[in-house]
């Protein structure tokens, strides 16, 4: 008995010692961590404001352009956790976008330009669909500057459903922007070029090269752009730039900045084949003190289009400058040289143009613009006969902000705005109504766009701002000469100085603009409705069907097998392979790949994907589920035999 008690005590003692040891080994107090990591109170506050414990979701969702990746980046605020890369202009294997899956192949095919398949995009400006000037969470549009195109992404699925090619532009920039009820998606040209696809000498720049803004008609019911109801307003060969649309008092109007109204084309560099004695672009393109903001009455342009007052170029309706001027629908207003941002206030009354090469932001008053237009009081006309309004008579105020002002976003608090200062590497908080600069917050480094919560709608939220910085330089671990970009989250809560909360490296192209929407406005589906797919395969109805050389395979996928598992065809057969994921559990996705055939699909719950390819090689090709879907994932395979 004594022995037993002693033994038991020994065991208990051992447990106690072990427990104590374990506790002291890993338990740390907050102050221990703070000391160990050299954190300040400010750091702790920032961490507490951004940390999402497991399972906690974000208050806002950011849709950011993915720059040269041709994709869109989706992340949450305040956690800054990346949630998705939406494949748009570029094939993306994980999502099965552009790797044999028929729907995505069709969407990417829409992006062909003059017969050429373009598999990348320089995405710049996402635009969420709006209802009465407020984000409605239904669609998001994204442009491609390099190959003028606009894509439609359906936010029920977060998938690209359409790519529309601009048939007359050769580059663009001021896109995407939507009208307050998403009647139109705007796309402004950038580098002037002939609308036709023919060669035209640069000597004919002023007469044959053109700019413009395309108004893509959006059919909300179908969730697609209707190319047949879209048109372009012709503009001079200035380099049209950032565009915004009117709302409230300025509803029905759109505003487009421009650079190089000098229409200068340089000749810099030894290898130049033309204009060998001219100076570089920079010298001539910003020689004048001012450029022009294009003011368009798009409602009037729509009327002209509907009245048939257009000419078709490459099959696309173009309303001439002449007809626009005649209809009192196109005007110019001088703006400080080489401006950049062009942002309409939530009530639609003011347009803030950031100077870029000028240290000021110029605030135009639309009521003054409209009054001058109504009185037909014009200062002059440009070479193309477009009326020019007097700069000072349209101006509300000019405010000196700092070096390189670029873009402006709005706060919930009336009059308060935030402007990015590219050269200063700072964000300016200021009041556009009173013209007072309130404070500046240094950021790292070279801020381009910036975004505040719902900051370009009729009802901004304030609260958070993200600085979309072009460079990260020394912010993160060095990963070679090409560094990630840096999105910095800033707390802009009213009554407190702005302060930096978080640095997020983004290693996927150079994101330009982003929009931040309240998360609860988004209502994506959890799974697809099986019957909404024409080729839905019901469990138990699988099979292989041959019609001459055309072989249709009807498959289902469920943890952990494809059905059928062994499929034998002949060399030269045209394969159409429908696979339905019959899972109804959330997130129970399956991948699908066939060895050597360069095909890959993501089959999401309820979805039917269709793969089309030719069995052009003899052999034995295992196919398998590429998602670790279950414990028996590795067994989820089959053989595709080509004899």
């Amino acid at each position, binding site marked *: 008995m004594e022995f037993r008690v002693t033994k038991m005590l020994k065991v208990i003692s051992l447990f106690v010692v072990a427990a104590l040891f374990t506790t002291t080994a890993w338990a740390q107090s907050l102050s221990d961590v703070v000391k160990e990591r050299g954190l300040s109170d400010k750091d702790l506050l920032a961490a507490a404001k951004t940390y999402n414990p497991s399972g906690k979701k974000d208050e806002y969702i950011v849709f950011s352009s993915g720059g040269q990746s041709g994709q869109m980046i989706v992340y949450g605020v305040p956690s800054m956790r990346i949630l998705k890369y939406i494949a748009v202009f570029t094939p993306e294997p994980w999502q099965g976008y552009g790797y044999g899956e028929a729907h995505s192949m069709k969407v990417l095919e829409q992006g062909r330009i003059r017969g050429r398949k373009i598999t990348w995009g320089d995405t710049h400006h996402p635009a969420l669909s709006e209802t009465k000037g407020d984000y409605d969470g239904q669609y998001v549009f994204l442009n491609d500057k390099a190959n003028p195109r606009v894509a439609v992404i359906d936010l029920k699925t977060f998938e690209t459903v359409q790519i529309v090619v601009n048939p007359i532009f050769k580059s663009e920039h001021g896109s995407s922007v939507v009208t307050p009820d998403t009647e139109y998606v705007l796309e402004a040209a950038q580098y002037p070029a002939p609308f036709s696809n023919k060669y035209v000498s640069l000597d004919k720049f002023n007469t044959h090269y053109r700019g413009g803004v395309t108004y893509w008609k959006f059919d909300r019911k179908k969730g697609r752009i209707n190319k047949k109801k879209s048109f372009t307003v012709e503009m001079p060969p200035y380099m049209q730039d950032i565009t915004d649309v009117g709302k409230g008092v300025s509803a029905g109007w759109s505003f487009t900045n421009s650079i190089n109204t000098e229409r200068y084309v340089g000749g810099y560099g030894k290898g130049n084949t033309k204009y060998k004695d001219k100076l570089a672009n920079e010298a001539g393109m910003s020689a004048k003190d001012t450029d022009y903001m294009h003011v368009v009455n798009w409602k009037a342009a729509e009327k002209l289009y509907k009245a048939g007052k257009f000419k078709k170029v490459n099959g696309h309706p173009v309303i001439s400058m002449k007809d626009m001027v005649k209809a009192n629908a196109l005007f110019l207003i001088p703006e400080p040289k080489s401006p950049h941002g062009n942002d309409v206030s939530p009530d639609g009354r003011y347009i803030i143009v950031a100077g870029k090469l000028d240290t000021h932001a110029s605030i135009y008053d639309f009521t003054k613009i409209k009054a001058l237009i109504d009185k037909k009081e014009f200062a002059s006309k440009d070479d193309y006969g477009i009326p020019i309004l007097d700069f000072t008579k349209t101006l509300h105020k000019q405010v000196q902000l700092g070096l390189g002002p670029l873009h402006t976003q709005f706060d919930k608090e009336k009059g308060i705005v935030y402007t990015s200062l590219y050269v200063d590497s700072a964000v300016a908080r200021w009041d556009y109504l009173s013209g007072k600069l309130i404070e500046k917050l240094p950021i790292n480094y070279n801020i381009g766009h910036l975004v505040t919560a719902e900051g370009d709608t009729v009802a901004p939220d304030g609260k958070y701002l993200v600085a979309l910085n072009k460079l990260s330089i020394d912010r993160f671990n060095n990963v070679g000469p090409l560094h990630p970009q840096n999105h910095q989250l800033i707390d802009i809560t009213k009554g407190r100085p702005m302060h930096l909360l978080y640095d997020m490296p983004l290693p996927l192209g150079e994101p330009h603009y982003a929009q931040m929407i309240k998360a609860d406005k988004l209502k994506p589906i959890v799974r697809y*409705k099986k019957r909404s797919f024409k080729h839905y395969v019901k469990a138990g109805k699988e099979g292989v069907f041959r019609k001459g050389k055309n072989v249709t395979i009807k498959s289902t996928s469920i943890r952990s097998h494809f059905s059928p598992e062994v499929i034998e065809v002949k060399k030269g057969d045209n394969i159409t392979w429908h696979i339905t994921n019959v*899972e109804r*559990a959330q997130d129970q996705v399956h991948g699908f790949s066939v060895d050597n055939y360069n095909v890959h699909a993501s089959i999401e719950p309820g979805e039917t994907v269709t793969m089309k390819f030719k069995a052009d090689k003899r052999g034995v090709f295992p196919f398998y589920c590429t998602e670790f879907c279950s414990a028996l994932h590795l067994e989820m395979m089959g053989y595709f035999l080509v004899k």
Partner: protein
Amino acid sequence: MKILDLLKIVSLTTLLVFTVNTQAAKKAKKVDKSAEHKANYEKKIKVNNDTIGVIAGVINYVCPKLVAKSTKICNVKDPVASAVGFQKQLVQKGTIDDLDDMEEAELKKAIKTRKILHQAAAMQFYDAVEQFKLHYPERKKAKAFAAKKKWQLAAQHEEMAWQYLVKTASRGIFTKKMVDGK
């Protein structure tokens, strides 16, 4: 010369011993394999029965959290009846495809009127029960082969039954996590 002869003898002896041993082993294996398959089959039966026991526990745990008490569907003494009853309650007179094709608002309404307490977990659990149903024909086939003493085939079908039970369990455990809000 002597060394070479010796080597030859050793080689021949080795070959002979090896051949005899292999033949004996093959014979022995043939006899042993049948017994092995039988033992394997019996082992699998036990594993499957134990797994079903675990699944029953999960059903009894999640059922009251998936359907309202007033439906009187959950019966701890008959978890299989609980699971099937739950499925019937969920689809009513239609099929699960009808639910799949409903718009979200319509689905939410249907879930509520059908006294289902947790939409996402219910869909997960429906799939779990579907997998469970698939194990029955496999076990039936296993039994039939066992009766003919085709132990290997019997074991294979018992194994396939277990695969379905594992799928049931994995979905069931996920359902449990969902109803527990974890």
